[in-house]
Every structure is written in structure tokens, then in C-alpha cells.
């Protein structure tokens, strides 16, 4: 045998899909190369210096609306790229051979089916990981000035379309596709299974695993009532910084029992004050121990707003009842550790799936 013959044949079978991926990557790279430097220049010369001119609000709005089409179109491409790699590269890899009977040709050449599978898994799997990684590199670079303004790269929607996690997703989706194909033995159902399971795994990981991979930090502070005007009170009395991932935000009473969420006394973040027989009480908690200002015109003062001293009385009531807010969060400094963890976990799952696939091809498909 010519050395590496199995690699050459695997390449022949993979070259069409590789060409498609390379074309897509090239298009994204060209688009980014043309527009990216201008975006960066805009940021450096205008946005980064807005403080000295006191026009941050208008400048930021203008900045964030530049290249709107690219901003909207590129992240979904990276979002679905691992799923497509799993469905179109992974799922047919074994299933199509089984479906069309060509496995009888492939597995009776002078290459064992284990080696045949290993070569194909390594070649197409690494190619898929490279495609996802390069696409993410392009996006992460292009979006870096926008991310510096938005500070939202830790949110579930953004975390998976930046950095290195797409590499892990591609590995997982590809390995799942190959394995599903080896078990289901039909291409289309294997593709469908891959899409469904990959989407489920991504969502479940974003909401139920990632926030807890490292024990979240905890900040307990007085519950500060939002005022009608002015900025919202800082979470965790300033412990939670912009860009941090808030895992939970709960309100507890003096005994430490959870009585609400999202900065309120109740699941929806509301603070309800009831006045019965002239005695104010905090809904669901208890009577306020402090005196309230007389409410001549009811709760609605002039202009439909409660009077300022009423708000102060409510705040005093909250404080005297011992109500506090507990925020758990992942600081932005854990962004890269969590990126690595998630990438390694998905890659690890891919390796386990590949092992299952080997077992199936060697032992069961006989």
C-alpha cells in the first residue's frame, strides 16, 4: 500500500464538503477584513474618547448601529456551524456507507474498518473543529470593539459564538453525528437526531451547567428600591460589575428565607405596599414597623408619582424588616476559565462518543 492510502481516500471523500467550508470561511474572512479595521478605527477614535467630549450616549448608539447587517448575520452562522458540521459531515460518515452498501466495498479493502474509521474521524473531525475555530476567531476579532461597549459576551446568547467554545461544539456535534449514524444506520434520521440533540445539549449546558461549573460568587446587600428616575441601583451593592454573569438574584427576609427575586418581594421583582386601616405593610412579608407620611391624595401624589418621602418610608420599612438581596454571579474574570472548561467538556464528550462509535462499528455491525 502507498503509505497513507487510507488518508488519501478519506480526503477524496471529504473534499467537496471541505471546499464548501473553505468557501464560507473565505467569505467571512474577506467581509471581516474589509469592515473590521474601520469598526476598530471608529471605536478607537470616537467611542473610546467620548468621555472627554461628553457625547457617549449618541456616539455609542451610532457605533452600535454601524455594519448592522454583519452584526445581525454573522453570529447565527457561527451558532449553526457546529450543528451543520454534525449533521452534514458527521451523520453521513458511517450511515451513508451502511445505507448504500458501500461499506462492503470499503471494509473489504486491505484496511481494517477500525483504521478506516479512525482516519475518517480524525480527518473530518479535526477539519470541522478547525472550521468552527477559525470562524469564531474571525467573529471574536470583528466583534471585539462592540463587545467592549456591550459587555454582554457572558450572556447565554453570546458565550457560544465567541472564543474557543465553538471548537468543542463542533467536535461534539460531529462525533454525535457519526455515532448516531452508526446506530441508526440511516442518514436522514441520523441528521435529524444530531440537530435535535446538539440544540438540546447547547441549551441545557448554557442554562443548567455553565453557571455552576465554578461555584458562583455570592454578594449579600441591602435591598435597594429602584427610584422612578435615575439609574437602577447597582447589583450586590456594586460587587457585581458590568459584564459579569448574574446566576441568581434573590430576596431573603431576616430569617434568611427566600421571599422574592429580581430585586423585589415576589417572584417578578415587584414591591407591593398595602395600606389597610392606615397601617402600611409589605405584601407577603408583614407590617411595616415605621411611620409613613400622611397620604392625602392616596398613593398617587402629584403627577401620578408617589411622594418622595413615601418612597423613603418604604425603603426604611424594607431595611427595618431586615430584607436583603442575595446575588450569585460569575465575575468577568472567569470568562476564559469557563470558555476552556466548556470547550474541554464538549471535546471530552466527543471523544467518549467516538469510543462508542468504534465499539459499534467493530462489534455490532458484524
Amino acid at each position: 500500500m502507498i503509505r497513507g492510502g487510507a488518508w488519501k481516500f478519506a480526503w477524496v471523500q471529504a473534499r467537496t464538503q471541505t471546499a464548501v467550508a473553505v468557501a464560507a470561511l473565505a467569505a467571512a474572512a474577506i467581509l471581516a477584513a474589509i469592515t473590521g479595521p474601520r469598526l476598530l478605527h471608529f471605536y478607537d477614535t470616537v467611542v473610546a474618547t467620548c468621555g472627554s467630549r461628553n457625547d457617549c450616549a449618541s456616539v455609542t448608539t451610532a457605533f452600535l448601529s454601524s455594519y448592522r447587517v454583519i452584526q445581525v448575520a454573522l453570529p447565527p452562522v457561527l451558532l449553526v456551524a457546529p450543528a451543520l458540521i454534525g449533521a452534514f459531515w458527521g451523520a453521513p460518515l458511517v450511515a451513508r456507507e451502511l445505507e448504500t452498501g458501500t461499506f462492503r466495498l470499503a471494509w473489504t479493502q486491505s484496511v481494517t474498518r477500525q483504521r478506516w474509521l479512525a482516519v475518517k474521524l480524525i480527518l473530518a473531525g479535526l477539519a470541522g473543529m478547525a472550521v468552527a475555530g477559525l470562524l469564531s476567531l474571525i467573529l471574536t476579532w470583528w466583534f471585539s470593539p462592540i463587545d467592549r461597549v456591550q459587555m454582554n459576551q457572558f450572556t447565554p446568547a453570546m458565550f457560544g459564538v465567541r472564543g474557543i467554545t465553538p471548537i468543542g461544539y463542533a467536535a461534539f456535534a460531529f462525533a454525535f453525528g457519526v455515532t448516531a449514524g452508526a446506530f441508526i444506520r440511516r442518514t436522514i434520521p441520523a441528521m435529524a437526531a444530531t440537530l435535535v440533540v446538539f440544540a438540546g445539549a447547547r441549551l441545557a449546558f448554557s442554562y443548567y451547567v455553565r453557571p455552576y461549573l465554578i461555584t458562583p460568587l455570592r454578594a449579600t446587600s441591602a435591598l435597594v428600591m429602584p427610584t422612578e428616575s435615575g439609574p437602577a441601583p447597582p447589583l450586590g451593592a456594586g460587587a457585581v460589575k458590568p459584564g459579569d454573569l448574574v446566576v441568581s438574584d434573590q430576596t431573603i427576609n431576616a430569617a434568611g428565607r427566600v421571599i422574592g427575586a429580581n430585586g423585589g418581594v415576589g417572584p417578578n421583582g415587584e414591591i407591593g405596599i398595602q395600606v389597610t386601616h392606615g397601617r402600611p405593610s409589605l405584601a407577603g412579608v408583614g407590617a411595616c414597623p415605621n411611620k409613613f407620611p400622611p397620604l392625602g391624595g392616596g398613593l398617587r401624589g402629584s403627577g401620578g408619582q408617589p411622594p418622595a418621602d413615601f418612597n423613603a418610608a418604604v425603603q426604611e420599612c424594607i431595611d427595618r424588616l431586615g430584607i436583603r438581596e442575595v446575588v450569585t454571579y460569575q465575575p468577568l474574570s472567569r470568562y476564559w476559565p469557563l470558555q476552556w472548561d466548556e470547550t474541554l467538556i464538549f471535546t471530552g464528550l466527543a471523544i467518549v462518543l467516538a469510543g462508542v462509535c468504534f465499539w459499534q462499528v467493530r462489534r455490532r455491525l458484524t
Partner: protein
Amino acid sequence: MNAMIATSAVGKKYGRQWALRDCTLTIPAGKVVGLVGPNGAGKTTLLQLAAGLLTPTSGTITVLDGQPGTSPAQLARVGFVAQDAPAYARLSVAGHLRMGAWLNPDWDGAQAEHRIARLGLDPRQRAGSLSGGQRAQLALTMAVAKRPELILLDEPVASLDPLARREFLQSLMEVVAEQGTNVALSSHLVADLERVCDYLVVLAASRVQLAGEVSELLASHHRLSGPRRDPGTLPANQEVIEASHTDRQSTLLIRSDGPVLDPAWTVRPVSLDDLVLAYMSRARDAGNSRRPGLEVVR
């Protein structure tokens, strides 16, 4: 090397169904072996076991004294032409030959190209657009160019028209004549095998019914006809394979080691076709008698 294929009580089960059962065979090397039997008799299973595509559920099988499919070296010794000659539809004829060259250590590229040219195949044509006969020839070319010691062919001519069938078997015979390769091929038609095989294995109802040299099988089987009589009264060395009776006459197909001496019988030779049919119908009747419920329905 003494055996092309040797099996010992080999069996293969799919779920609860035995596709091949208790198969013990020793096929000597240097033969062209025909596997004949009705559809679902276990021919494909036996060939795929020999090619290493399947592993037996029970028993053992060795091919050219090696374990099928376990190593690249063993894979290189056996060429396989699967049923319907599967090929990569979008890969060209030349692409398939390149694949063979890349995946096989002893590939004879010149011979493969020569064969393709002689068959009049366009190397640039995609395999998906080849006719069934052309695809079978491509598959045979790939199996031959691998330079194996044994070529296994699973129903190679079943889907071919009579002309393509004859051409295919002719080219197979040329390979045997030129290279002396061992060959085992299956068919459900004796006629396909009769001209090319010198060794025959009859499979039916997932079991081996008969195996032996064609010349010996023909020499040891006889068609007897004569006045009606009970087959049980025959000499011990005469085994009745098939018996039919009219009011006055009995016609028997028997296997006998020695000559038939009883002057009451008219003894005629048996055609291979009749011989195989007799064993296959015996296997079917034996299967039916084990299921009396079916008899009642009839």
C-alpha cells in the same frame, strides 16, 4: 495451505433468527466453488463471514488458514464482490481504481486499467451511471487487481441480463485461468454455476445440505426408475434423496457409493440441476414436517 474455507459448527444469528446454522465445511484450496441455494438460505451470510464483514455467533471459520477480516494482511488475501456490486455513485471508474491502489498493498494498476479499457468503460464515468453489468465488472476488476489468493463473489450475476451474465462469468474464468486464484461464488441458479464450478455447496434452510466435487457428486448420484416399491427396501449404501411414485412405478434419486446392481431398476445419470433441486426440496420438506401446523393449513 490445505483449505480455502474451513468452518466448524459455524452459525450466525440476527436477533432470534439463525441465518446460518451449524455449518461445518472444509473446502479444499485450488477450486472454483459454487454456493447454491434458495434466497435466504445463508449464502450471503457464509460469504460475508469468509470476507470478515461478519463475525460468527457460534463456531469458528478460517479462510486460507487465517481469521477473516482481523488484519490488513488477511484482508489483502481475500477479494470480495458484494451483492449488487456496491460502488460510490459519485466517484468515477478511475476514482475507484485509485481507491483500490491506495487501500491495497499488492494492487496491480496496469492490469486494472487494461481490464477497464478492454471492457470499454470510460474511466471518467461516474459509477452511479454505470449499468448493473458494468458495475459488476468494475467490482470484479477491483477484486482481481487486489491480487488476492481468494475471490468471493456474492450473487455476482443475479441482477444481470443473460448477455452480461455470460460475459461476466467468462471474465471470471479468464482470471482463474490466468492467475489460478481460488474462487467462491454464490447463486440461486445452478445453471450459472454449472459451467464454472468444480466444487459445489448446497445451502438450504440455513444449513449445508450437500458439499463436494462436482464430478464426484454426479458420479455418486443416480436416478432410478422401475416397478413401484418401498424405498426402505434399498441396500444400506443407497440413500434416497428424492422419491416419487405413481401407481405402478417408482422414481428415486439416490446417493450411492457403489454401483447400483439391482436389475429391476433402470439407472440414469442425474443432472446437476436435478441433484441440487432434490436436496433443496428435501430441506424444505424437512423444515415443513417440523411445523405440522403448516400442513394442516394446506
